[in-house]
């Protein structure tokens, strides 16, 4: 086999990788906002649950989490197919890290803004969504970009719970051809290209947000 013949199966694997990554980034983002906002809540129980979730998933290794959900959980009757397990675990992990970013950005909104909102008698919820969040979102974007790339890299581990992603295909190609150098180089290049695309998407979203209603055009050069 020449190296061009490696491309087809690797491409199939890349499709799976992109699908899993986009799915878990999206769900992870939702979880991040949910848990991040919950952490700033004055309700002790909600804040506590979010805290436990964040500490649990940030403090333990992804691979351990994956194996736990895939091998250990079925033993108490709860089992999912590999892809669901993979997306679920990655979402929970990205969500936990994202929650800290959300929380940090919300806390970084100048307290004077909150005072002004208070003085105008806005409710806490209104303040959150119409005052804090629009200003915080811009702060979050660079970190979200990093988390997206990290998520992409983490998807490689799902190959170990038998999902046919890019790494899995690379492994099987390697076993067939024994041409490790070429196969893995192509795989690394594949991930790199996907990563660059992800970065462009994040930058695009960031640009769109900067032009949005929270930031009048005259404020930016």
């Amino acid at each position, binding site marked *: 086999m020449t190296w061009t013949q490696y491309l087809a199966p690797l491409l199939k694997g890349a499709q799976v990788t992109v699908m899993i990554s986009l799915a878990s980034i999206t769900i992870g983002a939702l979880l991040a906002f949910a848990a991040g906002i919950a952490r700033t809540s004055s309700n002790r129980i909600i804040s506590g649950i979010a805290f436990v979730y964040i*500490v*649990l998933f*940030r*403090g*333990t*290794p*992804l*691979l*351990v*989490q994956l*194996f*736990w959900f895939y*091998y*250990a*959980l079925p*033993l*108490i009757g709860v089992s999912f197919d590999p892809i669901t397990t993979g997306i679920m675990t990655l979402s929970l992990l990205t969500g936990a890290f994202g929650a800290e970013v959300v929380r940090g950005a919300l806390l970084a909104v100048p307290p004077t803004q909150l005072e002004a909102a208070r003085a105008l008698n806005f409710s806490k919820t209104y303040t959150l969504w119409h005052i804090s969040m629009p200003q915080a979102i811009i702060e979050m974007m660079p970190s979200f970009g990093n988390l997206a*790339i990290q998520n*992409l*890299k*983490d*998807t*490689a*581990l799902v*190959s*170990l719970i038998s999902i046919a992603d890019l*790494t899995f295909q*690379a*492994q099987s190609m*390697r076993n067939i051809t024994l041409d*490790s*150098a070429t196969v*893995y*180089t192509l*795989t*690394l290049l594949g*991930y*790199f290209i996907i*990563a*660059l695309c992800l970065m462009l998407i994040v930058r695009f979203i960031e640009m769109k947000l900067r032009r949005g209603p929270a930031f009048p055009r005259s404020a930016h050069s």
Partner: protein
Amino acid sequence: MMYGYAWDTSTPLTFALSILPILGIGLLVTLQAAAVGYAIALVLGLVLALLRRSKIKIISWTVAGFTEFVRDTPLLVQLFFLYYVLPDFGIILPAFMTGALALGLQYSAYTSEVYRAGIDAVPRGQWEAATALNLTRRQTYRDIVVPQMIPRIVPALGNYLVSMLKETPVLSVVTVLDMLGLANMIGERTFEYLVPLSMVGLIFLPMTLICSALIFLVERALPKSGIPLR
């Protein structure tokens, strides 16, 4: 039975307690792998950061591209690359070293960024004062820049140490017998994965928390303006 320790699967608790010594041995491997990997990352990252500042465009661009490439590709694939490709070039390393090398390589891409940001954060006036006093570049780095850099880079470098600890289980994929590798082996033999895997998680949790706390203490102990010289 493993490493001379037998386990008792009668109740989850006895199971958990009986495999604790075995996991303890795995923990040692985890810590050693992280230690070696981190040492490599610290040194290699510094080399990369300094090369990146080279006046010769070819060197600085190559290093920049290489660093970005390593940062944006998965550790697992880099590990496979080193594990399978190095022997083809006659470099035969024990799996542990290959694993530590992969960790060191991936994290050197992160640490080089930390060093770069740290150097850039030292105010330009400091460089100019050093020039005005006719200090050589080496003296400037040694006495002026590096002492001021250190408090700024400790938090980021510390976080990467914690991250690296959490990525060591990936090494079990290339037959390194760390905690996860041993837990999986126990699981394979007993078909009981729940307890071993949960134990691994429960050991990692306080480990990372303690590590983060230690880093926070180091951060607090360092004066913000730099390592004091009298």
